[in-house]
């Protein structure tokens, strides 16, 4: 029973894809792991468009049909002047059902030996001699304290774990998307196509997505960049206007809101006895807003480092830093490039966006690709062209 056990090798705060992946890998390597989630359900509410690429998912798990609401092979962009550009994707993607997906990831962690507790809210760290040695919190009205060799902050966009340990994880307003999404039904959508609407008047500093879940259902949402949210119009107003215009007949099954950090990753991801993973370390791709795959990747890399550190020298900051290095080696460079591309494209005017759509329309459909799209988008900035080329070449 977790109530009796006072000490663990690792305590993970937060049961999203990052936390569950860390818990699974660490437990598989023989570490004792406790995962604490404040909500009453793992994976709920689903604050997510649920889009992933097949290749990204495959790094971690063989895609299970149970998780997949739609398979995506095509994409459609709508420019501010309503020019439409469509093309087939080189790589397929999925719209997941994250209620099932997140649940399964948590179950894998449990099968590997981790203990998961829901309704367990962590409200502080135990710190001794400047080292993190555990967590404290409340579980259904009862206070608890648990000690751990390493505490893992997987507590998402609202992460406070790092801040309690003195790490700088506050997201700047200009690096946060204010997001809202409705899962709607009673509409007609192309079952295998991502749709994106790009314009300052639809979603300034962000985009509207229509992600199908079958032929008559979709996740429809948007993010607006914090710097535009200052103008007095909130995200929900933009979404309501869009739905009124495009899908007035839609019934809303679910509404969720949430923040999407489109920031550089936090500089320091570790301290003595502490690691940050997933949204808590700002791992979301700053251009797409996709954070599921980067979250799982950071969970895996952090767990590998944690295992080494505990078997060899202990969880000092120095011994945990290889995780930061591993992140930068695998995903960090392209993250920085995406951040630079984001900084450029979020400044585009509607005229710029119309020109990009026109440029794409001029290319035969079988020659269109995401790479072509981004290349046209940053044509006037040769230095960014190199970033685009490298991001797509995966180097």
């Amino acid at each position: 029973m977790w109530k009796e056990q006072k000490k663990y090798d690792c305590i993970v705060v937060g049961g999203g894809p990052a936390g569950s992946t860390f818990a699974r890998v660490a437990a598989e390597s023989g570490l004792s792991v406790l995962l604490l989630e404040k909500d009453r359900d793992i994976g709920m509410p689903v604050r997510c468009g649920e889009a992933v690429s097949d290749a990204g998912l495959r790094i971690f798990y063989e895609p299970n049909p149970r998780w997949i609401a739609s398979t995506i092979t095509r994409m459609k962009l709508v420019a501010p002047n309503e020019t439409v550009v469509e093309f087939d994707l080189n790589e397929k993607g999925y719209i997941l059902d994250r209620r099932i997906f997140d649940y399964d990831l948590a179950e894998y962690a449990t099968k590997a030996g981790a203990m998961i507790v829901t309704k367990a809210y962590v409200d502080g760290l135990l710190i001794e001699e400047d080292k993190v040695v555990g967590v404290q919190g409340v579980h259904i009205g009862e206070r608890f304290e648990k000690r751990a060799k390493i505490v893992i902050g997987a507590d998402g966009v609202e992460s406070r774990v790092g801040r309690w340990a003195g790490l700088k994880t506050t997201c700047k307003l200009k690096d946060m998307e204010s997001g809202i999404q409705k899962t709607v039904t009673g509409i007609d959508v192309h079952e295998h196509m991502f749709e994106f609407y790009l314009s300052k008047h639809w979603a300034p500093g962000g985009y509207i997505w229509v992600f199908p879940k079958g032929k008559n259902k979709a996740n429809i949402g948007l993010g607006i960049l914090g710097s535009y949210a200052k103008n007095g119009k909130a995200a929900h107003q933009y979404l309501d206007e869009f739905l009124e215009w495009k899908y007035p007949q839609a019934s809303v099954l679910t509404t969720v809101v949430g923040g999407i950090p489109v920031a550089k990753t936090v500089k320091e991801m570790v301290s003595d006895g502490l690691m940050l993973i997933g949204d808590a370390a700002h791992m979301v791709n700053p251009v797409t807003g996709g954070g599921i795959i980067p979250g799982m990747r950071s969970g895996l890399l952090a767990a590998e480092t944690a295992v080494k550190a505990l078997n060899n020298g202990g969880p000092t900051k120095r011994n945990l830093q290889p995780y930061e290095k591993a992140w930068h080696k695998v995903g960090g460079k392209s993250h920085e490039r995406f951040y630079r591309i984001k900084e450029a494209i979020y400044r585009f005017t509607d005229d710029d966006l119309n020109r990009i759509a026109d440029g794409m329309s001029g290319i035969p459909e079988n020659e269109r690709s995401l790479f072509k799209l981004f290349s046209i988008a940053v044509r006037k900035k040769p230095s960014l062209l190199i970033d685009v080329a490298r991001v797509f070449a995966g180097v």
Partner: protein
Amino acid sequence: MIEVAENKCDFCGCCVGVCPVNCIEVKEADIIIDHEICIDCDICVFICPIEVLSQTDPKRSSSSEAA
């Protein structure tokens, strides 16, 4: 002072992520602002997707330079 329309809140934690002084706390279905620590920068007001938060001081609202 920041006012919370608690019955509107979705407890998403987005405001927590941007608060520069870490004075907002969001539990499973509970949001608390520590007004002693709050510096009235209004950043949380701007970022909230559904307008749960508002600045009660009319002189201050939407005049922040803190972004």
